[in-house]
């Protein structure tokens, strides 16, 4: 009699577990389904568009005019970093210096 009760309990428990497992699967499927605007997009199309954008950005970078790298300082001790102003400011600085030299007849 005790054996029959245990087997019934086990069967009942197994049924309950199976039912819960089915429910979990349904929930997962529901969460994975795109909703709203995302439901209208095709993933392959999106990926293709992203690759196109990446390529365009790279092309733009390659076509920018080259800038002159600042000259390295002399006698810099090891570990000291050289912080420099952007190259376009050096050009303005050079113009300013030239104007000053002209004014001072240097």
């Amino acid at each position, binding site marked *: 009699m005790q054996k029959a009760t245990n087997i019934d309990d086990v069967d009942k428990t197994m049924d309950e577990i199976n039912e819960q497992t089915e429910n979990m699967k349904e929930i997962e499927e529901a969460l994975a389904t795109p909703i709203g605007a995302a439901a209208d997009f095709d993933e392959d199309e999106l990926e293709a568009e992203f690759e196109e954008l990446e390529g365009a950005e790279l092309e733009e970078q390659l076509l920018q005019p080259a800038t002159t790298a600042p000259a390295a300082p002399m006698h810099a001790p090891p*570990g*000291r*970093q*050289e*912080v420099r*102003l952007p190259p376009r400011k050096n050009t303005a600085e050079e113009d300013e210096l030239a104007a000053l*030299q002209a004014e*001072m007849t*240097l």
Partner: protein
Amino acid sequence: MLHFKDPSKLRTKKIVFEAVYPAQDSGTLEQLKELSSKRVNVESINENNSITDAIAREMSGGLTSQCEQDIQKLELYLPLLENLVQHVDLIGDDPLVIRWTSDLKIRWTSVLSSSFFFNLMGPRFFQIDNLRFELGIVLFLYGAMLREWASQLLVTDLVQSATLFRKAAGVYSYLAHEVLPSLEGALTPEGPPEATSSVSSVMSFICLAEAQIVTIMKAEEKRSADGLLAKLHYGVVQLFDEATDFFSTAARECKDISPSLMDYISFSKGVHELRSYKYMAQALKTDGQIGTAIGLLQHALNNVQKNVGGMESWRTVMKQDIDTVIELLRKYKHENEFVWHEKVPFDDHLPLLQGKKIATCIPYRPERWERTLALKI
């Protein structure tokens, strides 16, 4: 700009050329008398004399500044002296000529030796029996007077001031390379520092640094960019560094060289290095690097030299610059604490100061009064 006026205070004793060099003809006698006459005017420089301002102005053809009048006296004497030196050089090996030159008793004070400050009996005169000593010291005085006049023009004409400093640099460079090397054999370590090439080189670089300082004054007037001002100030430091190198040589050659010249160089270097750091920090802050700016200002204050010598006016200027940097640092730290929260780099990650040296000498081209001198040998 710090002021160091000592080089212009040289004095001399009377020389009568025609009493020593025997002229072979009346033309030569006239020239020797003209030489002595022009020298009398040079002897009056830095002497207390009774000539009124009005008479001095008339004698100089209308020049109102004492400095300009003294420069004119030197410019009228130098061509005649160069002519004499050239002629004596041709016959200089003759023992008679050597004796005549020593009979001239060429004597000058020294403003760069310690005895200038500590001699209670009055200024000490150095005698060197060589016409190049006379030419050398007169040129040294000429350079010093140009420099003095340049300082006076700071308030009215920065362009003319810078030009005069560059002219003075050219005079000292000529002295160092063309005149004084041939005097080396006649010098002793106890002799006047002004007669050495190394001291003339020191003065040349000092004048170039001062010309660049005047240029910076113009740049600050025009509100030039902080980055440029930082470089120009550090260029001044680099020019004073070159002066320091030659001073080391001079200190080995002259036993009695006064520390005042080196004090001036040290103070000037300190002031302009501090200003370079200040402008560099301002440029970095404008560029959005307030943390690095703070590090730079802290580094500048930690490394500022603690000079104990020098003039009171120099110490005042240095203190004012230190106070300016302290205030700027306080302001940046406050802003960083409340707004930016940027990390302040360690010293070895701070940017190095860069310098631009733009002041150059105006070469001195000596005028020579091309007249034949015939001496009775």
